[in-house]
């Protein structure tokens, strides 16, 4: 009788597969909360490094695409909304609502745009990558909140905007047909420009 021996528990890159039936259940349900948080944080940081600091000499360039998660993007979107809301002098809650709505709906619409152009992309993976590419704009918004000089704001926003677009360019352009690359990239640029404009304008 050939009974298949139970394979060892999967490595901790997929902790959410709790009761998959492969051997003893992984102990993510009973581990301390701090361990779970630490694992998610380390994944966020590693994905961030892979997406926002693209290194052409890296040995496994597709790793960020495979290990996508949605905590990082959620955190960055909320952080940007909060920063803009703190910076605003009036109508703070509306500013947060518009910023959050713009970023969340924008990410969904950009992904649908790629899919409708006949590109090949996984919906949540694209949401994840677009969210990670917001990190430079988060840094820019934080700097603009702390120092309220218009010239400095314009310079900082331009630099971070270029950085965000440069980070989003590789995976957006590789997802569609080369003839439609501009059609897929223009909306990404438009969204980042409008977010950058919001950062400059809100004081």
């Amino acid at each position, binding site marked *: 009788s050939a009974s298949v021996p139970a394979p060892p528990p999967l490595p901790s890159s997929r902790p959410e597969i709790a009761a998959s039936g492969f051997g003893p259940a992984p102990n993510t349900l009973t581990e301390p909360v701090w361990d779970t948080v630490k694992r998610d944080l380390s994944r966020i940081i590693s994905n961030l490094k892979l997406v926002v600091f693209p290194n052409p000499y890296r040995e496994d360039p597709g790793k960020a695409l495979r290990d996508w998660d949605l905590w990082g993007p959620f955190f960055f979107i909320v952080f940007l909304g909060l920063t803009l809301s703190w910076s605003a002098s009036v109508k703070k809650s509306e500013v947060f609502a518009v910023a959050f709505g713009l970023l969340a709906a924008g990410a969904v619409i950009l992904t649908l745009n790629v899919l409708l152009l006949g590109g090949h992309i996984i919906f949540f993976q694209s949401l994840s990558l677009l969210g990670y590419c917001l990190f430079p704009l988060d840094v820019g918004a934080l700097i603009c909140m702390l120092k309220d000089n218009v010239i400095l704001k314009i310079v900082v926003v331009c630099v971070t905007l270029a950085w965000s677009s440069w980070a989003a360019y590789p995976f957006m352009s590789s997802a569609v047909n080369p003839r439609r690359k501009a059609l897929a990239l223009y909306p990404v640029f438009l969204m980042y420009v*409008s977010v950058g404009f919001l950062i400059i*304008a809100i*004081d």
Partner: protein
Amino acid sequence: MMSGKYTTIDNQPGSVPAVPDSGHVAVKFADSNLQTFPPSSAQGKITGGSRPPRDADDTFSKPGSGGSSDESQQSGWLRRRGTFTEKTASNPDLYGPFWICTTLIFVAASMSTFVTYISHKLKHEKWEYDINLVSWSAGLFYGYVTIVPLCLYVILKYFSVPAGIVQLLCLYGYSLFVFIPALCMSIVPLEIFRWVIAAVAGLMSATFLALNLRAHIVSAGERWFLIVAGIFLLQLALAVVLKVYLFTVSV
């Protein structure tokens, strides 16, 4: 039996055996005026059957009107010819209209913010960013481009001149294209210049809409003029509303 007729033809030397098609037996084309253009009749008047066939995009009768490119995006500039609907009848795209609208929202909000910022700073007044501009312009543009074509679709169906809803959305989306440079040019702080820009942009875009719709619904009977006039006025009203709301600065 029909074979009798064909045997006679077959017996003629050097003739091609006729295909048994009853409609084409022994038809000879006389010297028809349809073939010669301009009509070369010596009488100097055009007889009844010699009008050139009406062609879909008017190139037959107006050969020198200037070339038009195949790109849907650029045909928005060709307002005189009303040929946009023919070009996009088979493959209307919604990418152009949607992203033109979205770009317009951003341009409107940013230009209006910039204008109020400059005018407040010049008078050394305190300025606050009005976040409602973004949501207001989003509601206006998305609402206009979805609701007006929908109503027009229903109206056209009622008058039994059906037009596809996607074609109407495409038409309306591209008609808004001219507002992008118009809004950018409205930064200039001269009030009369802003009104001129708004009028010109409104007229151009309304004429584009009217020409394209007229080409389609002339067959609707006498009501077509009302519909086209209504569309024209609505587009002008949009231009006026944009100018009044976005660029009227009260400091």
